[in-house]
């Protein structure tokens, strides 16, 4: 093929002929760029893909020297040097990458493979470049590389231990934090070990494996590990199983956190809790035994017919104080139970626990009489609750009985289904001294109550609020007669309704 001297009709016809030929149709069908050049670097062939990528038509570029037209200046020397080598019949052993500049001045990266056509004497006549555009691929590759670098940096710098192990315990990957956590010099030393060796309890890894293979993901698995120096630490394992195409577990990958300090704190807290529970129990038991002795002794004195009236009054006051102390102990114990006992709520009839509370309150105030009016009847109202319902009513009724200075204490208890139908609204209305507005907000607060030393037996109303919160209800206090708190208090609370 002769190099075109200029852009002539003949050369255009030659191009059209090539395009129509069998070889030409393959060139056009190929997704690759195909460019032909003579020995001067003048373009002799510029396929459709070349036109699409550069924005030039073959007509525009035909016969023009490729280097100043398409090769960026900074890469031109290198490309020319390779071109010279090709002219000498030396094919490169690699696929060079360099940019082309499009008609609009945009740089596009190409990867090239070259070949040449020689004459009968073996002299190179024409050079062909077959290229693919790799601009996007290169960007993706660069992004991938950056992402891998970022991942590796994160893997290496994150303060929790990261790992990948096979089901057999071979360590595939481990980060520096885990190396340090287990007390090893470097990753290489640690990676030779088997993961099962770190478990203080050998059966723990078996349990963990069974769990992860069944659940796929295991979170918060707490176990003791043995460090290189023999010291044991508590760790929390979070991991997932990675499966191959056959669905078999290929490896486990996850993280591991040293929770030794937390665990030690938990153990210490538990021990302290048990100790306080024991002491509370002991104190409650012994104090109530003492209270029993004092109470009976005071009752003996009270029963003495020859006791002067003013002393009888003092004895009764002291008896009330002993009962108050017993109530306080009982409430502290109930607080403890509220925290310990699981919340298992079920539908139950409101009447039995209510009446049990009424009986208990009547017994607690032998020198007072309760006049109760209520619409609570057996089987009439069902609520969702547990064994603390009696405590709830007991403490509220106890407060009303205690606060009312009269011997005859009138209390009205009304239950009604709340507007939304979800809750039962219960009102306990007394005719005691009432609750001033300034106290209404704080009356259920244990500390405020203690400071003021007014309603309740120390923690009684706080206990009431806790029980109602346990059931997902609400409590507040309002005036029995709106706007006049001195007419008595109305404790209103909502309890979730049970099934009728």
């Amino acid at each position, binding site marked *: 093929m002769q190099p075109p001297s200029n852009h002539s009709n003949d050369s255009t016809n030659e191009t059209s002929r090539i395009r129509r030929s069998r070889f030409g149709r393959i060139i056009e069908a190929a997704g690759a760029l195909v460019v032909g050049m003579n020995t001067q670097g003048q373009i002799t062939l510029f396929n459709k893909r070349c036109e699409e990528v550069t924005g030039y038509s073959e007509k525009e570029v035909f016969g023009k020297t490729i280097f100043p037209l398409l090769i960026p200046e900074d890469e031109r020397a290198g490309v020319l040097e390779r071109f010279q080598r090709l002219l000498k019949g030396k094919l490169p052993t690699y696929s060079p990458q360099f940019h082309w500049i499009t008609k609009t001045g945009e740089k596009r990266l190409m990867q090239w493979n070259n070949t040449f056509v020689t004459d009968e004497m073996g002299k190179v006549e024409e050079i062909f470049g077959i290229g693919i555009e790799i601009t996007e691929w290169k960007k993706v590759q660069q992004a991938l590389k950056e992402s891998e670098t970022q991942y590796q940096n994160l893997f290496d710098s994150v303060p929790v231990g990261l790992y990948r192990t096979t089901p057999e315990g071979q360590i595939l990957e481990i980060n520096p934090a885990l190396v340090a956590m287990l007390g090893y010099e470097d990753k290489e030393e640690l990676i030779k070990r088997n993961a099962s060796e770190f478990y203080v309890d050998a059966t723990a890894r078996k349990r963990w494996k069974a769990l992860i293979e069944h659940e796929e993901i295991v979170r918060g698995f707490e176990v003791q590990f043995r460090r290189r120096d023999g010291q044991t630490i508590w760790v929390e394992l979070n991991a997932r199983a990675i499966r191959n195409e056959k669905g078999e577990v290929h490896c486990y990958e996850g993280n591991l956190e040293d929770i030794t300090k937390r665990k030690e704190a938990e153990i210490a807290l538990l021990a302290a809790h048990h100790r306080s529970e024991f002491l509370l*129990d002991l104190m*409650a*038991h*012994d*104090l*109530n*035994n003492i*209270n*029993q*002795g*004092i*109470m*009976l*002794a005071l*009752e*003996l004195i009270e*029963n003495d017919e020859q006791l002067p009236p003013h002393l009888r009054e003092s004895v009764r006051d002291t008896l009330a104080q*002993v*009962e108050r102390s*017993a109530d306080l102990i*009982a409430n502290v*114990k109930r607080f403890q139970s509220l925290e310990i006992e699981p919340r298992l709520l079920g539908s139950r009839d409101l009447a039995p626990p209510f009446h049990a509370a009424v009986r208990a309150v009547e*017994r607690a105030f*032998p020198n007072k009489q309760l006049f109760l009016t209520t619409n609570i009847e057996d089987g009439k109202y069902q609520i969702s609750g547990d064994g603390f319902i009696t405590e709830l009513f007991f403490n509220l009724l106890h407060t009303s009985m205690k606060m009312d200075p009269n011997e005859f204490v009138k209390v009205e208890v009304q239950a009604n289904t709340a507007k939304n139908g979800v809750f039962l609204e219960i009102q306990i209305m007394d005719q005691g001294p009432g609750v001033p507005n300034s106290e209404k907000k704080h009356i259920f607060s244990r500390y405020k109550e203690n400071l003021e030393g007014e309603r309740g037996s120390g923690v009684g109303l706080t206990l009431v609020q806790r029980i109602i919160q346990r059931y997902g209800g609400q409590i507040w206090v309002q005036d029995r007669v709106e706007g006049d708190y001195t007419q008595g208090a109305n404790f209103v609370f909502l309890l979730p309704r049970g099934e009728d």
Partner: protein
Amino acid sequence: MVSIFIVDDDENLHRVYRSFFTMKGIDVIASAFDGSEAVKIFGKLNPRPDILLMDYRMPIKDGVSTTKEIRQMDPASKIIFLSADETARDQALKAGAISFLIKPVRFAHLLETISEVLVNQ
């Protein structure tokens, strides 16, 4: 006359119980300060007491074990459990106690319970 057997490790309580019961015409026919002593004394008592007043926490043998043994010896025995430990209620009733009262209890309430137990027998 109603007879009663007091089982409690608190000496002071024994004294006040006795004073009260005597005042109310109830005969305290025996006293024990631990469960083991209670079982021994109960075995020898003839006639049996109408009521046993049983504490829970006592040295050597607690009230629940004592109740079980006494009930085995005499299934008709009427044991009123009296404890400062509310958590013992279920165990006490399961062991055979007929009633469970929480300390401190007013004497009037104690008498009321004794009457109910005797009326129901």
